[in-house]
């Protein structure tokens, strides 16, 4: 029973990843040049990423509030939602470094993974470097409190 439920959650994660990727592709997030044009506000500004954020936030902000009213998720015992509230140096420094890399290359983690399907070398090089960065940082910080 427990195992059956776990298999179902694995399948759901696969389907959600797939749907997520379709959303990323449709919204232009998998095109680094588009992201850079959004972030380069002094150039020929492309505001479309604001609409992506708006669409995602609009849907999730409403559904989130409906979902957490339930006692538990459909296939799990509890909702696992980050509860840390402290704004510390790690949060700020991490967001800074992430922002710099994002603005340099126009890729954040999910779209980079999806873009490997183009089978071009650049997304692969980016993803491998990103995985090294993730692995290195989680080794150094040894953070058990991941979100």
């Amino acid at each position: 029973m427990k195992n059956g439920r776990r298999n179902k959650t694995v399948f759901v994660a696969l389907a959600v990843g797939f749907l997520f990727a379709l959303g990323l592709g449709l919204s232009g997030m998998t095109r680094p040049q588009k992201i850079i044009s959004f972030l380069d506000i002094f150039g020929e500004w492309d505001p479309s990423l604001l609409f992506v954020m708006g669409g995602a936030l609009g849907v999730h902000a409403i559904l989130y509030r409906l979902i957490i009213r339930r006692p538990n998720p459909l296939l799990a015992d509890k909702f696992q939602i980050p509860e840390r509230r402290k704004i510390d140096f790690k949060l700020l420094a991490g967001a800074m470094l992430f922002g710099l890399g994002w603005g340099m290359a126009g890729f954040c983690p999910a779209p980079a993974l999806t873009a490997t399907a183009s089978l071009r070398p650049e997304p692969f090089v980016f993803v491998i470097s990103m995985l090294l960065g993730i692995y290195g940082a989680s080794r150094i910080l040894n953070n058990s409190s991941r979100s």
Partner: protein
Amino acid sequence: MMQNYWVPLLGGAIIGLAISILLFVNGRVAGVSGIVSGALRPRAGDWAWRLAFIAGLIAGGFALRTIYPESLTNTLEMTYPKIIIAGLLVGFGTVLGSGCTSGHGICGMSRLAPRSIIATIVFMAFGILAATVMK
């Protein structure tokens, strides 16, 4: 002109829906950097769903290749050292800051979590800085 923005709005809504399904069914927050960092340091019973999610992201990319190839044509026109540095920064920064565009920018902002609001403002500001200075 306005109709150019319906497609990104729809794409964003699909992302919001996907994130909501993962929370509703599995009780998990769809922070992609967190899912990947957990997949790289496997713990029993907490590994398969992470790999499946990543496989789904890539499989979705292959679907896009067929149904909407333009979405993957815009590649990085920059030198490899720059791509590598950017990748390392994104990887290291998202772990240090406990989240990326999805975890902080969408999930956390939807909850109005103070950490995520601050992180999103900071990574947007530094993204603008890098994109403006580096072009």
